[in-house]
């Protein structure tokens, strides 16, 4: 009589993990965040090299314990992998290219300084971002640095507000201004914003 497979069987869980890893190797697709599935696999492969799988204790299907850290609400295989990487301090974003995804936009455009406006842009990963703003004579009128992982330099969508206080309560002349998003001296993207009185 064949023994039926139970889903909480450790052997079953190991097999499922192995199948997921194989799929990751063969799947070349990158998601919208530029996260290469191959890069996740490479990190997981390193994870298996340095971690004895018996050290990873599982309480139930949605939680994971690694080295005294507990990861909850794990729904997808990617959640498990990211949790493992986080618990073992592996940087999954290392292979992701620093980029602004799409075009940075200013809203509203044109805008009035007294009412203010917002620059919105999406980053491929956590980055230190410098915001430069130039006037129509190519003079720099503003520069600020946004640390990695904080608003302005975090992975995903960032929004930065600009108003009269941004320019020390100085009323800029009506016209067009050019903003640049810079990381490590390289201009990632740029845009135009217009000011009216």
């Amino acid at each position, binding site marked *: 009589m064949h023994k039926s497979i139970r889903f909480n069987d450790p052997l079953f869980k190991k097999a499922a993990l192995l199948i997921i890893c194989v799929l990751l190797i063969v799947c070349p697709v990158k998601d919208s965040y530029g996260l290469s599935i191959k890069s996740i696999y490479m990190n997981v492969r390193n994870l298996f090299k340095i971690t004895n799988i018996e050290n990873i204790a599982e309480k139930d299907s949605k939680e994971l314990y690694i080295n005294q850290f507990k990861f909850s609400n794990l729904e997808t295989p990617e959640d498990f992998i990211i949790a493992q990487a986080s618990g073992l301090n592996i940087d999954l974003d290392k292979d992701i290219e620093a980029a602004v995804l799409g*075009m940075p*936009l*200013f*809203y*509203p*455009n*044109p805008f*009035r*300084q007294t009412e203010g406006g*917002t620059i*919105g842009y999406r980053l491929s990963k956590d980055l230190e971002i410098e915001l*430069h703003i*130039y*006037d*129509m*004579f*190519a*003079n*720099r*009128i503003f520069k600020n640095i946004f640390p990695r992982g904080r608003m302005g330099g975090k992975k995903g*969508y960032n*929004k930065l507000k600009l108003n009269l206080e941004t*320019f*020390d309560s*100085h*009323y*800029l*002349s*009506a*016209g*067009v201004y*050019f903003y*640049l998003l*810079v990381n490590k*001296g390289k*201009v990632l993207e*740029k*845009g*135009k914003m*217009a000011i*009216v*009185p």
Partner: protein
Amino acid sequence: MKKLFFSLIFLFLFSPSVWAIGDYFMLPDLGTSARMIRIGNIEGFSKLANVTFENPSSLHRLNRFSASAFMTTLMHEVEYKNLALGIRLPIGVVGLGYMTAEVSEIPHTYMKSDLEETFGVDEYFNYHSSLAKVAYCLSQSKNIHFGISATYFLTNLYTYTGSGYNFDAGVTIENEKLAISIAMKNIASSLKVKYKNSEEENYSGIENLPLQTVFAIKYLIDDFAVYAQIKSFGSNRKLTNALGLSYTPSILPIITISGGYKEFVVIREVRNNYSLGIGLNLFDISFDYAYERSEHIQFNHKHYFSVGLEF
């Protein structure tokens, strides 16, 4: 007479300012010709029609007729051009000038969703700013010349339109070696540029036309010309200095090499820059080139070209 003269200079440079609103974007602050830019943006000593934009009294240097054109593009985005004409008439010298700046493909944005608050583009618009100037110069004697000019300003930005006008006045005093140029621009300080919005009936915006006073001198030493200038900038009357040097070798007078240093104001901060350039004068046609370093992180260099004709 001397006391009155210097009192007026002091008054013009240090008169109180009004700066509760923004200043209008003054196109001529970029420079009106490559020749003027390469000597540190020192105004009032050109022999071509572009001096219309600088000091109307300097039109006295024109022979019979002069035309000049200037163009540059900054950051691959902003196109500047100007064109000037000058003609000597029995009643004096008249100058006409037109200057523009254009930026195209500016995105007009909307909010895609209230939940995520991300932005999208629904159309693109252009920015266009221009000024037109009419100047008149009358010579009181061989050494003293007076001039006045009227300027009309126009700006178009999406559905917004701004317009205004003002007046300039100037005096030039010179002999064989020394020339002094004094100009006051936008002397009617109560006049403003007024904005309307075709999509908003009740909208009204205004910008100052700040009074600018320029005091410049030129001194000839053999093949060299030395320039110096004090200029007040903006509604907060920041004083800025400029120095320039030109060399025209007597063995090859068709070429002039120049360098300059200028100070300028960016949001209440006084900054400085250097410029270099060369001019070529062939058969009454002048070709001028100027170079300036830029603080832009991507476009480090600014190049300016102008051409002029006089006869």
